[in-house]
């Protein structure tokens, strides 16, 4: 009984033809997912924080709490 001759050439090309498009698709998916899942919310969070940010008020709060060494709370 004679067996069929096995494939001798083009094995890597065949594997790449199958796996590279999948790899590309998954990578694009990961990138898009990261952009809209992480970076856009983060940018929005920063924007919201600084929209109504009063630097002097925050500084005074920190000063009164006593965390600075260059300025002590107003009482002392």
């Amino acid at each position, binding site marked *: 009984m004679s067996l069929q001759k096995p494939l001798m050439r083009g094995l890597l090309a065949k594997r790449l033809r199958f796996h590279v498009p999948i790899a590309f698709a998954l990578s694009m998916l990961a990138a898009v997912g990261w952009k809209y899942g992480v970076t856009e919310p983060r940018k929005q*969070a920063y924007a919201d924080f600084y929209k109504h940010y009063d630097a002097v008020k925050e500084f005074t709060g*920190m000063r009164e709490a006593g965390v600075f060494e260059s300025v002590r709370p107003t009482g002392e």
Partner: protein
Amino acid sequence: MVRSPFLSLSSPSHPASLPPTSCFLLSVGGDKKSKEETGDGLNRTFSVVALWLLHLLTVHFHSQTTTMLRLTAGRVGSLVARRATVALTTSSARMASHGHEVSEAADMSKPMYWDRREIPLPDKRYKDILTPADESLKEKEKGPWGQLSNEEKLALYRLSFCQTYPEMNQSSSEWKTVVAGVLYCIGLTGLVIIWQAAYVSPPAPRTLDAEWQAKQVKRMLDMRVSPIEGFAAKWDYEKGQWK
């Protein structure tokens, strides 16, 4: 003769479930059981003697010697240890210096027989010494194989090979022992660690006290640590509580 990967040959005279090393041992030292037993006895006494010598050298000499002698004793001790480990691990490949009581050492420079999955055709036949019946069977093998009966074919197979692939590949319950040993050692280690926590470790640093940690959290909130997305972002400064 090619080793059969799928056949499960059942021949009544053959021990179908041999431990892995026994085929190699049998192929080297022959089927002579008596030699194996006396060899084991001598093996045991030698290892006991070797360990006693090692004990002498390392324990009794170590306190009284100068560095030079300790080094020499250590070197000799390691030699004895090596001989002891050789005696404990090998039982067939013994040193020629032991004399006539042991079976002949395996000559690793000659072709050897192995029962291994990756070696379907070992370098030599399994049985070296053939009985006259085996010899005549080998002669018959030179003729047309259709004239061989099934028993004869089986006998010829067993002359050339010790175990078939299914016999070689049969799984054992060794993993249970391994898992049990691992869990036992982990348990022992756990006990040791508990004892260490009670008797060895120094007292914990004061920075781990609950009071210190509370003061630390308050200071972090005062400093506005990560106020946008992190730590202080979760604190409501108007109400003075976590969001």
